[in-house]
């Protein structure tokens, strides 16, 4: 379920590193919790991001969730397809519905601090257990 080459944050973002380019999205657990996504607000290309800083929002009909950056750097590309098709996030959160690509100079080190696929799965299981208790 959760690709092993990704790293995951406690706020349910995933990040994939290719060289100094980090691709960020939200996880399947996050999209499921949010329900049908209706709108995504993303920064413009060139915007500077800081680790842990909120850089956008994902909206369902009745809720708004901030997205937090797992890396620091500059936004190289945003996924423009989401403007007209926000539902892609529900359909393919780990693939076609990536949110932004960031040029992150310190990505390797920042990613090391995050959870890997197995750790994130365990974290999600814990969250689900808490929610239903």
């Amino acid at each position, binding site marked *: 379920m959760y690709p092993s080459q990704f790293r995951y944050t406690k706020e349910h973002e995933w990040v994939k590193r290719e060289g100094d380019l980090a691709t960020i999205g939200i996880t399947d657990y996050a999209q499921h919790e949010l329900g*049908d996504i*209706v*709108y995504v607000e993303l920064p413009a290309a060139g915007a500077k991001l800081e680790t842990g800083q909120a850089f956008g929002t994902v*909206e*369902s*009909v*009745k809720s708004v969730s901030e997205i937090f950056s797992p890396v620091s750097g500059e936004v190289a590309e945003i996924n423009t397809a989401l403007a007209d098709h*926000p*539902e892609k996030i529900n359909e393919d959160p780990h693939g076609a519905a990536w949110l932004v690509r960031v040029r992150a100079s310190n990505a390797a080190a920042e990613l090391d601090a995050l959870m890997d696929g197995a750790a994130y799965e365990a974290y999600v299981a814990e969250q689900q257990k808490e929610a239903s208790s």
Partner: protein
Amino acid sequence: MSDEKIKKARRHVSQSEELIFERSGDGKRGMELPALDVPAVDAHAALGAEMVREGVEGFPQVSEIEVVRHFTRLSTWNYAIDLGMYPLGSCTMKYNPRVNEFVARLDGLASEHPYQPAELSQGCLRILRDLEKALLAITGMDAVTIEPAAGAQGELTGLLVIHAYLKDAQGSPRKKVLIPDSAHGTNPASVSLTGYQVENIRSDASGQIDFSELDRLVTEDVAALMLTNPNTLGVFEERIADVARLLHERGALLYMDGANMNALAGVTRPGDLGVDVMHLNLHKTFSTPHGGGGPGAGPVAVVKALEPFLPVPVIVDDGSGHLKLDDQRPKSIGRVKAFGGNFGVLVRALAYILAYGPGIRQATEDAVLNANYIRKNLEGFYDLPYASASMHEVVFSDARQKKNGVSTIDIAKRLIDYGFHPYTTAFPLIVPGAMMIEPTESESKEECDLFVDAMRAIAEEAAEDPNLVKTAPHSTRVGRLDEVKAARKPILRWKPEA
């Protein structure tokens, strides 16, 4: 779904009714104007051709009878207090007395211009002054403004007054306002508008404000605590006097959101509890009609020390009983709305108060009686998250029904089939799956019993036939609306076919 199970149901007229633009025809009019008694003017000549529009594109052209039928039919698709109970929590959907409508429309009241000379406005000013006096008697506060147009604007006004007062009295307005996690969304939104930071304070296991948390959080950066009392769980904040004392000792103020005043009027007064600033919602406690979403009015009452900061204009007596509007108030926060408060709404509120007099206490008692009666009768059927005593409203949760996948929203939608408007779903946020119920004093025992029977029946359905509940409502003109589609691709107006 069989009819004999449902004791009370409202069938919606299923007549299809297009948009008014879709039934429009060339050259039709619904209203004629008397002929001009002065020479006509050619608009092109008077204004210049580039300033003139030929006609409003797409505007309807329909006859009077078509307008009457159109809106009459639309009205039949609405639920309303005149039809039955709205158990919406903290909305206080009580009966809207018709005499209030009559007096607000009187010639000599509805016709008056806010800029008339005071000597030709004594009737209007006297109405406002009488309302102010009554509101002060009910709240136990020292001064009041009737300018704010609604509760949220009242909150903004109250916070601006706090800001100005602290700046004046202490040299600094301070930085933060504390808001309980159970608060209505307008509270933090209003705080943001005043430049203060919001800091959330949690409730304790009894559903009341966590006093030790309060003690920890009230530093010299805290300007005020915004408290709803009773809170949105319907629970009276029993330590409110201690809360006020703590705040005052540390130079902060207590703001009371008066949305739940229906539990207090005539029984206790916020001024006695240590409240410094509060707003009232006249469209809640004081019966002015909701009209599909407004208008309302949100008077703000304050203690003496804050009076100089109230918005302009203020009604003053020149000493001989002659009233006028004073806008020369050097410490005032300024004007919050042009032309004064929502006078037509204020008239209705005064008419309501005059109808009850001191007997307003009976309304409060009946409201609390109804809520407790419903609570007692539903306690075995729905999860009650807080054991604390309920005042005029009670909050259940869908925890039991959730086991079958039935949520508060589903139960609410099924309630429609039983002829009721839903209760408030999913609020307050501190109760997952909340079901917030406020019957108000306008409901008879019989109506409360019907509501209880409906809720019990739905609890049974949730256990035996959950899908019936999850796909409700079944008896309305339209089924559940696709809100996702409406948000993804908003269509916010009619456009002619291209």
